[in-house]
């Protein structure tokens, strides 16, 4: 066990299980460590437990067995509000506050943290520039933005308090392929610059390979494997192989529908 906080991983999950009362087991004895400054991708199909794992990290859910350590401290000892403000949280574009302008969406957390208005406004401007949003969009409402712009607002909002950890649940999920590739590239460069610890949930192998320093492959609530992108491309693990062939088939086929994916993974 690490004694100094500096060597403790940003997040450590030890033998965590989660099954809601009366429901199926969503997560089974998962152990995972995320080193500070590293981007870890949770890859898996729908229902594999990746979103559940993410929600354990900011205590939207608490494990029914096992434990989590955040920066060496048990998650249960953290005040959930402080813990969440210590981690940015970005989900698909539906999570923006529809009654707030872009400016207020991004500036909400600084405002509730009691920042003076001028400092909040400055921070919002800085963040909008950082994620590539034109300053003229500040007074727009989410419904007046394109999908790509909304995602950028979501990322900017998650970064508002400059948290050392960033949790992202399919942040680029609802985008058309071109905008998606564009934002993935931008996010990659942003991540190189900011050096935050990032946990990113996706079912998109390309996204996982592009953005992840590590890829945790989940299946039926269990960790099926932990790879670097290079390892993932080489491994003979049947599940990883299935993922690769599903995505290669999709790319080779060009117009072939991705429906084949589910079948090949059975």
């Amino acid at each position, binding site marked *: 066990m690490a004694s100094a906080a500096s060597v403790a991983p940003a997040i450590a999950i030890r033998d965590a299980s989660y099954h809601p009362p009366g429901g199926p087991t969503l997560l089974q004895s998962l152990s995972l460590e995320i080193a500070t400054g590293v981007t870890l991708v949770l890859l898996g199909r729908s229902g594999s437990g990746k979103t559940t794992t993410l929600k354990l990290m900011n205590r939207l859910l608490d494990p029914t067995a096992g434990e989590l350590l955040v920066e060496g401290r048990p998650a249960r000892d953290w005040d959930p509000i402080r813990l969440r*403000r210590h981690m940015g949280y970005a989900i698909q574009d539906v999570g923006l506050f*529809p009654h707030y302008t872009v400016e207020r969406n991004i500036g909400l957390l600084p405002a509730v943290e009691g920042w003076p208005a001028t400092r909040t406004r400055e921070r919002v401007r800085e963040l909008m520039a950082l994620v590539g949003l034109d300053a003229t969009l500040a007074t727009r409402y989410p419904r007046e933005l394109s999908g790509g712009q909304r995602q950028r607002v979501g990322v900017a909002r998650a970064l508002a308090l400059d948290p050392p950890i960033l949790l992202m649940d399919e942040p680029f999920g609802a985008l058309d392929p071109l905008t998606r590739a564009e934002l993935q590239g931008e996010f990659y460069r942003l991540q190189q610059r900011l050096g935050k610890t990032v946990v990113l949930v996706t079912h998109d192998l390309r996204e996982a390979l592009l953005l992840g320093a590590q890829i945790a492959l989940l299946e039926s609530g269990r960790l099926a494997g932990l790879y670097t992108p290079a390892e993932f491309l080489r491994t003979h693990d049947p599940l990883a192989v299935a993922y690769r062939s599903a995505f290669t088939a999709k790319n080779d086929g060009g117009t072939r529908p991705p429906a084949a994916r589910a079948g090949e993974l059975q």
Partner: protein
Amino acid sequence: MNLLDYLLAHPREVFTLSMEHISLVGISVGIAILVGLPLGVAISRRPAIARAVLGAVNSIHVVPSLALFGFLFAVPWIGDRAPRMAILALSLYALLPILRNVCAGILGVDPAVVEAGRGLGLTDAQLLRRVELPLALGVIVAGIRVAVVLAIGIGTIAAAIGAGGLGELIFRGLAMVNDSLIFAGALPAAVLALFADLSLGWIEGRLRERV
């Protein structure tokens, strides 16, 4: 005899009774909002209790309004004065639409938005004040609108227990078989209801289009 005769001959009396009517309705709906808002928020958090509470409040509507006004004679302090009874009865009637819409409005907020707010680190109170209530406001105003229109109509019956308001002209007209007198009470009541409905409907529309 012209229907407008009494109204034109006694404008001051009609005006005074209209004001009485407005204050009865205003105070009653005000009380219903003060009770319904926090109670609606509370039951929106506990769906099991929500059903029981809404059922209980709903059962008030089963009691014929004239009888409800009568029952309140027996209640200490309230029964001493007719306006008190009228206000309590009208508040009880106005409570249901408000309570139901506060609850439905909050439960109707996109769960993804609420979860994003929670995940970002908003406290329950911040989430309620900054996200849930503003987004539910259109639905809540719709409930208030129903409550006001309902209270204006039922409020005319309050005159039966001597609480005043426009019902006084209607009951007098009924007793004297005088259409012009009935009309002098019914027309202002209808105009009030229409005005309240349109103006609150306009506010509701403005609030809903933001979302």
